[in-house]
């Protein structure tokens, strides 16, 4: 594989497979390319293989077979060199409760190779951007779960790496904090940083990513921009309605290729309570994967 920055590739994955000792195939021959500056959202139900896939990219998990290159560096053979180029927020990571927020960020900045002054400057910036000014001098153990999660996101941004890999970065955050992280992510993406993140929040994928990949059964089953994914879904309109007529009302959903067909359907059945909207990303996901994002098994 030739994945040098000149080729404009940040990540190149070939035939990536992970088979656990118990025989479970968590990823099954994934081929995947991310260009520099792209922001890719990985969507999938629990147990689909999102975390396993990302943990192989971050070098935490050894693949059974396949190849991973990060900016042209073989991430399997030369993990430390590859790790210099990425910032990672693992899904379930702990923070050091006895450190203050400032200390936590500064120490990890130094561990990423920043000198004392740069670590301090970047720490101050991140504390401001993550809206943690009031907590800067508090021990991390005194913070809420959402505030701790924001620190973990901040740790990934330290050192300004050209690639961010974030595994469900906003899970557990309240809506306000989630939007703060979105704003920060959008700024970072605008500066040319490549971002790969997994999420359960469809709105997050729609808001931030310029490319979305659906993963199911350890395989990438669809991959493209939101427009491209929607274009592949023939039913553009989603009608949700209550079928009552004096009986107990039952919710129904129908999909239509065009608006007129949907209006005709409503008129013919004399439906009075309904909602007609363009098909959502979840509808597209459902049509491709055959199940909802909330279905699935817990991932290993």
């Amino acid at each position, binding site marked *: 594989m030739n994945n040098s920055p000149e080729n404009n590739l940040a990540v190149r994955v070939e035939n990536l497979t992970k088979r656990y000792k118990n025989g479970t195939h968590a990823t099954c021959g994934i081929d995947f390319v991310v260009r520099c500056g792209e922001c890719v959202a990985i969507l999938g139900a629990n147990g689909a293989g999102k975390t396993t896939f990302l943990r192989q990219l971050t070098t*935490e998990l050894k693949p059974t077979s396949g190849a991973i290159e990060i900016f042209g560096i073989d991430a399997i053979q030369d993990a430390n060199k590859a790790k*210099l180029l990425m910032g990672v927020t693992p899904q379930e990571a702990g923070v050091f409760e006895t450190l203050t927020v400032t200390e936590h960020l500064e120490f990890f900045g130094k561990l990423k190779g920043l000198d004392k002054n740069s670590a301090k400057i970047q720490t101050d910036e991140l504390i401001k951007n993550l809206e943690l000014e009031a907590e800067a001098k508090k021990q991390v*153990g005194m913070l809420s779960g959402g505030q701790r999660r924001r620190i973990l996101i901040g740790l990934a941004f330290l050192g300004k790496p050209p690639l961010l890999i974030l595994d469900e970065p906003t899970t557990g955050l309240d809506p306000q904090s989630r939007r703060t992280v979105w704003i920060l992510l959008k700024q970072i993406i605008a500066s040319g940083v490549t971002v790969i993140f997994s999420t359960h929040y469809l709105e997050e994928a729609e808001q931030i990513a310029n490319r979305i990949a659906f993963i199911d059964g350890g395989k990438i089953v669809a991959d493209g921009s939101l427009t491209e994914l929607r274009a592949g879904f023939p039913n553009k309109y989603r009608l949700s309605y209550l079928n009552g007529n004096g009986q107990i009302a039952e919710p129904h959903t129908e999909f239509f290729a065009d608006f007129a067909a949907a209006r005709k359907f409503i008129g013919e059945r004399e439906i009075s309570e309904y909602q007609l909207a363009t098909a959502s990303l979840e509808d597209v996901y459902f049509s491709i994967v055959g199940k909802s994002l909330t279905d699935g098994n817990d991932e290993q």
Partner: protein
Amino acid sequence: MKKRLTDIFCIFQIHLARLRREAGPFLLAAIIFPITMFLFASGIAGQSNETVSNNAKLHFLAASMVFSLSLTAISWLGYLMLENRFTGKLKLFATLPLAPSSYVFGILIFAVLQGSLGTISMLVAAKILGVQTNIGGVFGVLLLALTVFIALLALCGISVIVAARVRSFSEGSLYTDALGAGIVLLAPVYYSSDSMPRLLQWLGWILPTTYINSAISKILAGNPFVGGEISILVLMALVLLTVGFKTLDWREE
């Protein structure tokens, strides 16, 4: 090299911050409990109000110092490394361009600091309790420091192996608790080797606490000839840490 030293120092500082909130358990494991064991052993030895000889007190002081080192390096640091692994803190290090050995060396420096504090506290407590030591000037102090340092390396090797190999936090906690006290009680530390069952005498030969105790006892009594004990401890430290480093891998299979 500079990056590696910075990494080690950062890991040390991160763990040093724990003492802000967890000084109590450290004092208990490294100082209070060993001093209590010293008083207990001295009390048992001096049955019927007999006066316990200074030699016996020196023997119990050395034993309690070994107990302090073992509780610090195996029970306390082992617990700390288990917590790092099973609460997701280790994941943060695993995603950084950081060598696993830098992590272990950072923890080792923390262990050396704690071991030094424990040893100094034990010596001060012994002085207050009227135990006459004969360390013998700067050379004796340096020899004691060297012994404590190598002892901590060997004992930390055990912690690293346990923390890296166990499958759960509870399993690891049981091992570190049992080993922290066990390798002192199963070795000829508080008792003489002759008074122990044969099986334990044989076991004593392979436990580092036997040689740590022998070296510290000699140094406290003013005998500087501890080359044999230190050589064996260096060998044990090398083996245990090598196995520990090989066992600890950032990357999961």
